[in-house]
């Protein structure tokens, strides 16, 4: 099976989510060609992750409709029956268009390998999983960020220039505002997350959350009321109506654990709850818990991490 993997890059290097998509395709048993549109240094890291070849189109295309045309053309040129892209912000705009162009059935946000024509994905905001059968010969899947590892044992891949008719641009990017001054990993891709809720009582108390996050090199998150009240920015809101995260470690302080909150965080590998109320529902979803006052526990935890190095 030939697979074309769409790999987004940043400063010429493949993004982690992009490399996860490459390693995923390889693990599905495919011969993987990576496609990079835009800036690329060397093979961008795609070879080590499992790609045998990289197709490179240097044009800095911003309209995902154009990128989708290039992806479909590359899939065609490679005789690929499988197209994989990360389920990140770009993949979500590109992959559905590719599926339509190729007449392919598509499964977004997969969490398991493609076995035959079947693949697993989370549904009902992580409260259940579905086994989905792709009934078309050509298939498109997007991989959930941080659900699959990145292999590093592959050889450097050869890079070939690729050209295709991308059509006209109907969307242009005019600017970018970074949301995190501290340059932390964006929430959907974060490996460690420190989150806090209404139990913190006010935005002026977030210093202890920030310090723990910094000590752990974690990304900060919050519950919905906290962002609704303007204590924290919207992009930190996790849950059913916020961002869905899948870190290795999720630490939640002063968050009760409402079902809508859990829906966005229950795919975390390890959950730690810190709450004054031993009956808080979050303890039922957590792996480790501390019954205690966040104002005392968080600084102590920060100190413990700093001393242990």
């Amino acid at each position, binding site marked *: 099976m030939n697979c074309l993997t769409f790999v987004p890059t940043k400063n010429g290097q493949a993004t982690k989510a992009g490399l996860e998509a490459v390693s995923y395709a390889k693990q599905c048993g495919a011969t993987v060609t990576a496609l990079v549109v835009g800036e690329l240094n060397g093979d961008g890291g795609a070879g080590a992750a499992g790609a045998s070849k990289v197709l490179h189109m240097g044009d800095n295309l911003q309209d995902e409709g154009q990128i*989708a045309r290039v992806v479909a053309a590359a899939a065609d040129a490679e005789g690929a029956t499988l197209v994989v892209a990360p389920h990140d*912000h770009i993949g979500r705009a590109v992959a559905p268009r590719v*599926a339509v162009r190729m007449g392919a059935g598509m499964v977004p946000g997969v969490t398991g390998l493609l076995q035959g024509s079947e693949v697993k994905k989370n549904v009902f905001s992580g409260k259940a999983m579905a*086994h989905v059968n792709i009934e078309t010969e050509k298939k498109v899947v997007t991989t959930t960020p941080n659900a699959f590892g990145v292999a590093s044992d592959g050889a450097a891949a050869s890079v070939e220039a690729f050209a295709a008719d991308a059509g006209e641009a109907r969307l242009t990017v005019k600017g970018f505002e970074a949301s995190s001054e501290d340059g932390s990993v964006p929430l959907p891709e974060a490996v460690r997350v420190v989150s806090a809720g209404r139990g913190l009582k006010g935005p002026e108390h977030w210093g202890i959350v920030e310090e723990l996050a910094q000590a752990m090199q974690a990304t900060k998150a919050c519950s919905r009321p906290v962002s609704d009240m303007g204590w924290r920015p*919207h992009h930190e809101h996790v849950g059913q109506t916020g961002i869905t995260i899948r870190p290795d*470690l999720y630490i939640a302080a002063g968050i009760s654990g409402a*079902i809508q909150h859990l829906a966005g965080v229950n795919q975390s590998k390890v959950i730690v709850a810190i709450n004054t109320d031993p009956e808080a529902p979050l303890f039922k979803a957590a792996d480790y818990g501390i019954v205690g006052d966040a104002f005392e526990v968080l600084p102590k935890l920060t100190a413990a991490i700093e001393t242990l190095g």
Partner: protein
Amino acid sequence: MHFRGIESSVLTYLWGSFDVVIWALEVNHSMTMKFLVCISKAPDTTSRIAFTEGDTQFDANGVQFIVNPYDEWYALVRALELKEQHGGSVTTITVGEADCDPVIRKALAIGADDALRIDANPQDALHTASLIAHHAKQGGYDVVLCGKETIDHNGSVVGGMVAEMLDVAYISLATSLDLDGGKAQAKREASGGLETVEATLPVVVSAAKGMAEQRIPNMRGIMAARTKPLNVVPAEGGVQGTAVSKFELPPAKGDCKMVSADAPEELVRLLREEAKVL
């Protein structure tokens, strides 16, 4: 190519027709805007999730259905605000059976002018998108809005597929949207921040948090919704690419290991040595 129950010649015809851009040419670029908002029904966020028929069907027994939050709070409300600003009309479209009518009435109560229901049980995103696109092509809409994702399928797919079928621009995960002289200006979620983008109309937009504030329907809206048109049309032009073969519930979570509030170093040790996540 093989789609269940659909001959490939029919399919080729359908794919071919997506390239027809008459839709784009018919669009009215005056300041009166035609909005189409994709409204889906979803189980209430507190619903117990269970399955029947050998874990192949969602068990809707006792489940309260709501308008998918992204569709209601952000896509619909922003369409109404833009209509108030520019004039025009807001039509909702839903692929679903008669059990969707209560959530469609809610969208009308919030302020949509009229509603269209395509009478089909949606099979997958491709199916839903092809039915929506089939209608939208004839409608001459300037802006098609949908939600960031449905809280049951968690796809984030339908909007992009509709955009491709209509051969128009797609702004995905938008957190703001404004219209100005045949162009849409938006902010959208990007890695580590927000991108400002501009797209030519017609456009498909998927709405994420930040785009608008939730509106609670008032009594007048609820009364008016009873007599607003809810047109039901048979499904035409639908194709399907995937089918769920089985649902599964996640394994039960083990016990929570409690650590004393005075011994945070013990928690750090456990996270490092036992859980191996630090």
